[in-house]
């Protein structure tokens, strides 16, 4: 796996792609090569000495030909709001690549991706990898309201889309996991198919149950609070499904993850 580095780069572009949602693009030869879907970066919030931790973001996509890296994020707190207001040409300090990545079984023919909200972030890079491997992509993508959807056109050129909104403004009216069950119900066999999941905790819990019920392999990218991103702070503990009591009861999202087999972990609130 590529060693992590501290990189100084400049902001190439920032675009407002959906409600409160931005794609930040910076130039880095190092980070646009040799990274995989699921891995993440940490970006320092500039000009805010009181904001200590770097912000972790999934690598949304890369453009190795042009040395570009994209991250997708919601401007929700002060740190991400400052990042959303960066201007093109400003310096950005990045640490990465961090964490592990999604794996594709050699017999995998179809990736069934389940994304909730900003959980879509790692799957653009996954689309790139699936296309290179000639693996089909089914994208189950749910958001609160249609103005939250990101990059649907870019996904549509390869994936089959199954969209849902909580308010019914586009696609299925309800949660995305409702659409997953009939799809899995109609599959003739599951062996060459796998679930790839990222999203809010209630969705992850539901998918975990569904994956078990339909006996289908599932990998999940988890999101946790972290101070360092590389195993030093030990703050990003994820409870293990099968702990060794008194000895090892937690994984670290940054180092053991962020991608886990879904049956290995417990989704806490």
């Amino acid at each position, binding site marked *: 796996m590529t060693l992590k580095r501290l990189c100084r780069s400049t902001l190439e572009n920032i675009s407002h792609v959906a409600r409160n949602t931005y794609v930040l693009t910076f130039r880095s030869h190092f980070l646009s090569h040799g990274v995989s879907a699921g891995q993440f970066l940490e970006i*320092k919030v500039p000009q805010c000495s009181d904001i200590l931790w770097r912000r972790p973001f999934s690598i949304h996509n890369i453009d190795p030909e042009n040395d570009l890296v994209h991250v997708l994020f919601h401007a929700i707190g002060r740190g991400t709001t400052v990042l959303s207001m960066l201007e093109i040409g400003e310096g950005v300090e990045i640490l990465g690549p961090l964490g592990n990545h999604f794996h594709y079984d050699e017999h995998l023919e179809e990736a069934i991706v389940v994304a909730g909200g900003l959980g879509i972030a790692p799957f653009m890079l996954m689309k790139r990898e699936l296309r290179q491997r000639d693996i089909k992509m089914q994208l189950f993508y749910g958001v609160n309201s249609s103005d939250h959807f990101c990059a649907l056109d870019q996904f549509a050129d390869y994936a089959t889309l199954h969209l849902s909104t909580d308010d019914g403004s586009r696609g299925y009216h309800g949660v995305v996991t409702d659409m997953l069950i009939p799809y899995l119900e109609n599959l003739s066999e599951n062996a060459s198919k796998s679930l790839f999941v990222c999203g809010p905790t209630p969705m992850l819990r539901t998918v975990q149950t569904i994956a078990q019920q339909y006996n289908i392999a599932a990998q999940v990218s988890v999101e946790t609070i972290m101070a360092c991103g590389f*195993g030093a702070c030990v703050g990003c503990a994820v409870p293990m499904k099968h702990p060794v009591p008194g000895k090892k009861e*937690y994984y670290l999202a940054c180092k053991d993850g962020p991608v886990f087999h879904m049956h290995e972990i417990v989704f806490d609130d």
Partner: protein
Amino acid sequence: MIDLTVQIGSLTLKNPVMTASGTFGYAEEFSDLVDLNEIGAIVTKTVTPKPRPGNPPRRIVELPCGMLNSIGLPNVGIDDFIVEKIPFLQSIDTHIIINVAGTDEQGFAECVSRLEDMPGISGYELNFSCPNVKHGTTFSTDPFIAERVTKSVRRSTKRPVFAKLTPNVTSISEIGIACENGGADAVSAINTLIGMSVNTKTRKPKLATITGGYSGPAIKPVALAKVFELACKLSIPVIAIGGIATAQDALEFMIAGATAFQVGTTNFYEPDATLTIKKDLEFYCQENNIPRLADLIGSIQL
């Protein structure tokens, strides 16, 4: 050529920059970002006699200029530590200080005894002051116990022993003096301040353990006052810890009486901070015609 060396008991450090326990893992985590050989001394994450899984999440909270943690000393235990962590640490060309803790007096001595014959270890730091484990601070809130445990560790090792003190006491120097009387070669101060944060929507504490340890640049003035107090009252060296993020911070502590210092929380978000600080200390000495950094120690003008 600036002389950055400092002396802590029998140890000569090539520079006063150390890493604070629990913020630098077992050094390997930083090996692709920092030339570990350049650091004055590396203090490892705490090891205990038996493995510990650590506290349930949520373990950390970010605050302005600081953070709360309640990690709970997760570690593999001394047996696996020797097999899994020691070989890499031995490969680093600097002083390695193993931070140890126990739930009782014997626990501290047991860890030290197990490590005593291993080459490549320069000394031990006694974690008397973790606020996030049961009985964690007992050892450094009661001077009688602090002295007794220090004595028992002293008997188990020929190597330097540092006692890491909590600021969550009425008089830190009273505990420091007890550790000195027990045979400690230095004290490190301060560990984290007990703190708390509440989610106003759920009305629940943000940390699973309700309270945790507050660290980061916000605590620097508190740490500085404690380090100054210790430096005035003790005759053994004081190793400063608490919000050190820049060479300027480090200089303040050295002028106030610290012989060396540990970079802690800063490692999480500026993983190469140790070496940046070292370089900037060198620049400071050059600019101010200070040939020997150690001359600054305790040079405060009152």
